[in-house]
């Protein structure tokens, strides 16, 4: 198999004595979508934070495109192509929806250091931002403050910020959590389109098993910070360790697509 785009080796972080992510080694390849599942508190978000640089690892390493990025800041990793959408919405509340997205476009364009040009004269960026707003169906709200959006729209904007970075690694952390049923497809279609592009590395933390089944090429299961299962979706879901440790005694509910947590 080709060289992995993103790889962790023995990745560990301890908060006090508690290892929230415990010796996780895993590799992610271009063109694949990996779902990361596990009960609440399993360490999924923390694992993401270690890979995208929001938290420093206690031990172990993170490799991106063959380069060791373990000691690099989140900003440096973002510049190297790691995009992150957060589970807890993380926006620029008093800026407008359009400004939020444009900040991501501008980060990608790397012309941010421009002190003297006028922000509203960069037509190219305005167009790019508009494109990503349309992708999440927020174009009609471009002028409202991010803080004033309803929850579902905030989640969409959260995703749009990552999309506008145009990374090659996409990390979605429960992108549809708390969205109403009719809003979910917008985000899922977006992920499907990314996947169809064929060259992106996509990581998705998701509780809804029907979503995981329909999107994932592979499932990784975390439990108490440890990687307990890894493989193609059918095998992982059927494996005894997952049935026991994670899906517990709810196979009926799971097939109906209920949240498992």
């Amino acid at each position, binding site marked *: 198999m080709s060289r992995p785009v993103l790889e962790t080796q023995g990745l560990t972080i301890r908060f006090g004595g508690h290892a929230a992510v415990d010796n996780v080694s895993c590799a992610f390849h271009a063109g694949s979508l990996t779902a990361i599942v596990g009960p609440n508190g399993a360490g999924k978000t923390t694992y993401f934070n270690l890979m*995208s640089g929001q938290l420093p690892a206690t031990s172990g390493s993170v490799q991106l495109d063959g380069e060791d990025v373990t000691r690099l800041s989140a900003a440096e990793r973002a510049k190297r192509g790691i995009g992150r959408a957060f589970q807890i919405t*993380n926006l*620029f509340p008093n*800026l407008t929806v359009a400004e939020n997205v444009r900040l991501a476009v501008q980060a990608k364009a790397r012309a941010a250091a*421009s002190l003297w040009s006028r922000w509203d004269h960069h037509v190219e960026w305005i167009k790019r931002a508009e494109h990503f707003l349309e992708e999440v169906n927020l174009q009609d709200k471009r002028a409202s403050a991010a803080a004033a959006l309803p929850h579902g729209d905030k989640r969409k904007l959260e995703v749009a910020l990552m999309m506008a970075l145009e990374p090659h690694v996409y990390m979605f952390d429960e992108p549809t959590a708390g969205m109403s049923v009719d809003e979910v497809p917008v985000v899922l279609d977006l992920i499907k389109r990314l996947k169809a592009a064929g060259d992106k590395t996509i990581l998705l933390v998701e509780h809804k098993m029907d979503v995981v089944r329909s999107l994932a090429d592979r499932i990784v299961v975390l439990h108490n910070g440890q990687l307990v299962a890894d493989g193609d979706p059918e095998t992982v879901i059927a494996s005894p360790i997952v049935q026991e440790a994670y899906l517990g005694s709810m196979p009926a509910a799971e097939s109906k697509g209920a949240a498992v947590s």
Partner: protein
Amino acid sequence: MIQSALSGDLPRSRVLSFLLAAIFLVLAFTPFLFSGSQPINTAAKICIFIVLVASYDLLLGYTGIVSFAHTMFFGIGGYGVGLALYGWGPTWTSAGLGLVIALVVGTVLAFVIGLLSLRVRAIFYAMITLAVASAFAILASQLSEYTGGEDGRSFRVPPLLRPGSVLFDIPAIGLRVDGRVLSYYLVFVSALLLLLAAFRIVNSPFGRVLQAIRENDFRAESLGYNVVYYRTVANCLAAGMAMLAGAMSAIWVRYTGPDTTLSFAIMLDILLMVVIGGMGTLYGAVIGATLFILAQNYLQKLMGVASEATSALPLIPHLLHPDRWLLWLGVLFILSVYFFPNGIVGKLREMVRGR
């Protein structure tokens, strides 16, 4: 043209536009509208503080950095020009050289403070700046051999700017342009250009990143912005602007000393001006500085008049006695912060949106 000068960042409120236009016109023509030295002194002080407060707004309002070292940079600019004029004689060369030295020293200082401490939490940064500023003020008064200590230094400005140099004088229409008037316009034009430059900066891609950092530094970092770098540059820019304000002040008052440039009282004034005017708008700096300095200079007089007028009533004339002006100033500030939490500019813009 106005739109372009303001970098597309318009007042967005008719009342605000009117106020700004009035302030601009009065400041532009002060030397010819009023006689006596108090109006022109007040006007020059307003110009200088508009720059100083705008530069502080760049830090506090736009980037979300709480610094107590802003008067230190104001002082560095003032001392740089002042001591150069004092020591090397009243020429343009010494003033320019003093300014350049001040800018270099001050910017390096701002850079070092920024780099060392802008990665720590906001409250620690505030503490560090407080410590550095206090140390600097002590240093300035201890090195009295060079700085004049607590007394400061009075110095002469280049001949062209002295009251004795009369450019033209047409008594028939009461038009007299002397060195004082010229100094005033030096201050006024510098202030105008610096303010427009500040508008340019905050409305640039760089300026939007500063706002993003203020709003959510964690997310800004996650998008690939090196937050420490941006904060440090903002710190240097704000310091540079404060130093230029200090230089303007030195040229205008022809004196530099700890009380007028380095004191903590000025730091508090700046904070009040930016909060009253409205943080993160730059227009707030203009409104805040103007109102505050007018109040400082004229509230006492106004109260004297009011006290006279109400002398027949019980108690009220005592409350309105000019000696109580500080009390009333305090009351006015508490009221304004209570009723306009987003400052006057914020309030005016809300009123537009509310309609």
